[in-house]
């Protein structure tokens, strides 16, 4: 348990919440408020409120629920990416299932939070996210690998030389990143992987963050590729 004296030098993490379930919202806000290094910046209960909230000063971490009463949280994520570019977006989900998480990551989320996690776990996740790390599950890892394999297959001839990879072009996973994903699909935890790859557990989490941002680019490239294939965009 970090004591208050350990952190005062660091600026507090500003947390914003878009969540329609008052129970979870309360639990979450309580946990944040109880955390000395965090500050609850703003809260919204609907998509409209969430979008309005984005007009205000940016938070460090934005927690978004996908199932909002007046629309999808994905819209809020997309808007937040544009309006709060420095913000770390996190989606809250009951099951952490592949469909929801992948869609959120592709929209720009950097992580997800399981709603049934203990308050301590939640605070850990928010902290990790704020400092540049991201969580991942084996199923998500497998999906990400598949996504990159598909993207590599569709854009392989245009793959730029290593080092010159521009974000607008195509993102390719590095060998280390792939290794991390492989370990995760085989059930190893971040701690175990860190030991196996001689890294710190936090570095493993930053690898995942990098992978997510590449996935965002890749999914954009894929969307463009698909649009071209469908004839929606000129070549």
């Amino acid at each position, binding site marked *: 348990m970090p004591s208050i004296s350990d952190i005062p030098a660091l600026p507090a993490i500003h947390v914003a919440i878009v969540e329609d379930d008052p129970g979870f919202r309360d639990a979450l806000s309580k946990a944040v408020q109880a955390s000395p290094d965090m500050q609850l910046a703003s809260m919204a209960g609907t998509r409209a409120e969430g979008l309005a909230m984005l007009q205000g000063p940016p938070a460090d971490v934005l927690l978004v629920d996908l199932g909002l009463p007046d629309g999808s949280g994905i819209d809020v994520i997309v808007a937040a990416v544009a309006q709060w570019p420095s913000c770390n977006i996190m989606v809250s989900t009951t*099951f952490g*299932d*592949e469909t929801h998480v992948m869609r959120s990551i592709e929209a720009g989320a950097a992580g997800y939070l399981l709603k*049934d*996690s*203990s308050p301590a*776990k939640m605070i850990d996740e928010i902290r990790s996210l704020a400092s540049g790390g991201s969580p991942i*599950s*084996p*199923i998500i890892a*497998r*999906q990400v690998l598949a996504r990159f394999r598909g993207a590599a297959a569709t854009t392989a001839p245009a793959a730029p030389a290593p080092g010159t990879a521009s974000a607008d072009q195509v993102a390719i996973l590095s060998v280390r990143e792939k290794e991390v994903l492989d370990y*995760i*699909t*085989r*059930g*190893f*935890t971040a701690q*175990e992987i860190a030991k196996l790859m001689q890294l710190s557990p936090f570095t493993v989490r930053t690898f995942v963050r990098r992978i997510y941002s590449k996935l965002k680019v890749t999914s954009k490239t894929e969307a463009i590729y698909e649009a071209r294939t469908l004839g929606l965009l000129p070549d």
Partner: protein
Amino acid sequence: MKIFSSRLFANALLAVSVMLLVAVGAWYVQGDGEAASASLHLTQADWQDADGHGFSAPVPVMNSHDLPSRWQHAALPSALPLAPSLLPSPESAAAGEKAVRTTWIKVPVTGALPAGPLVLYGIRIKTDGTVAAYANGRLAYRTQQRGQLWNSLFTPLWFTLDEHDGAGPLKEILIRVEHAPETPVGLSSLWVGTAEALRGRYYLRQWLQRELPATLSAAFMVVGIFALFVWFRRRHEMRYLLFFNLAAVSFVGHLHYYVSLPIVTDWFAWLTSNALLWLLTVVHLFLRQLHGRPLTWLTWTLVGVTLVASVLSIPALGILPVYPSTSLLVPFMYAVTVLMGVLVCTMGAKASWRRSREGMLLTIGVGVAVLLGMSDWLLHNNVVNPEGWFLGAYTNAVTFAMFGGLMYRRYIDAITEVEQINASLAQRLQAREAELEISHRLLREAALRQTISEERQRLMQDMHDGLGSSLISAIRSVEHGGVSDAKVSQILKDCLDDLKLTIDSMEPVEADLLLLLATLRFRLEPRFEGSNITLVWDVQELPTLAWLEPSSALHILRIVQESIANILRHTRADRIRVSTARDEDGGGVSVTIEDNGQGFDIGKALDSAAGRGLHNQQRRAKAVDGRVSWSSDAGGTRFTLWLPLMRKIAAV
């Protein structure tokens, strides 16, 4: 653009081909511009007969002045009238030699002759005996030295008049013809001139009277042979054989227009004289097939006449000595043939009228051939002057054209039919494909409905057994009180875990058992975080389990989960090791979970009511064709789940 240019090319090709043929023809028959002035047309003649016995060789020099002066005038062309014999016939019979009449024809050459070597051209001398020609009294040309040849009538007269020193300009042509007293002599008008001036005239006659019909006859024969080879491969189609037969009979029947053999009574003569009747019979039989009327009496008449003529004229029998006395019997045979032709034509036309277009075509052909044959008959019998055309040579061409036309129609029809069949085949194929597509779609939909229904059943069963009963017990606990909030919370957490497991079982694990185990570990991780239990993850790559789909995945998840839950619940273990292995024989894979707890009596546990969890594990393992086993002692418990690589029957 492409179509336009290809059509242009086709038209050009056609034009060039036709022009080529026309040019060659024009070049072949062209007469010189000054042809008329460089030649002299002789149309006046005087003639006289002299009767004797047997043929004799012409003397080398013969002057018309040495002949009796009983000349009669004739304008050429002319068939000279037949005078009664001057010799009493019994005498000639006694002498054993045939009576021979020698006819002298004197053609004076008056007018300006062109300079240079001269040729004499005439369309024909019509006689059955020898021919000799004198120019200015000197023997210049001999032909038919052993009597008439088969092709004599169709071969124009053409010979060079040699110049002799001191002979002076050409004054007179004297022609000596020996022949049977009863056959008249016919002579066409004659031309004298340079070879260049007369060649065109000669070639045209030669080509149209002999070479063109001969070429067509040969072409007919070749196409007939082609038809024969078609028939070899398609024996059921008699018409090809019939066509070959027509070509063969026609070819043989027209050979006499081209061969320079003496006319004697032999098999060739027999073939020649009867072939036309045979041809007519075959055509009639063909016609019958086309119009479908039996015409019984005509058929019998035709066959009868043909048979009678054929048999009676067999050379070995000699009943009808047709040849060499052609002048008597040939006209008769021609008359019979023409009559038969008219009959076949008329009856064929009547039968085919509005019934068979092909029959009408053939009938018209027969009519034309009969007319052509009549022209021969008219010439043979001197009804028309001896400069006429023996058009009978073209009956072959007409027959060829008719049957070629029939074949052409059938060929074009067959191609059209094949094209139509192909088109309709493509259409039918398309229709079938559409049908198949529909039935496939229906099948897919049915399969989808089936899958959905099975999945629904599975989920309902699962919710009923798991989530449903857990929730009921939670509700009961709360209602009856006496249960701590922590306990209720635990029951609800179990429910949520249960639900998560169900959801995980539906995630796309891609038949990867390791990924499934990884997912389970990821779910269970929070439980270990608060405890002091070390989880050792000692797994290795496993082969793909093709049969791994949501329902079997859920069974496996529950088996493993139950095993770990048992350790957490009932043992005091602080170390759990999960490992995977592949059978050495490659038949399956196993998941092993070991703990360092106090162990338990497996037999007793299975028998007791508390062993329900173990029984569930057994049941679930069996459902995926796998098995579970335990080994336990004081040092710990080792649980093994074995799964087959392949399942005998796909799980339903």
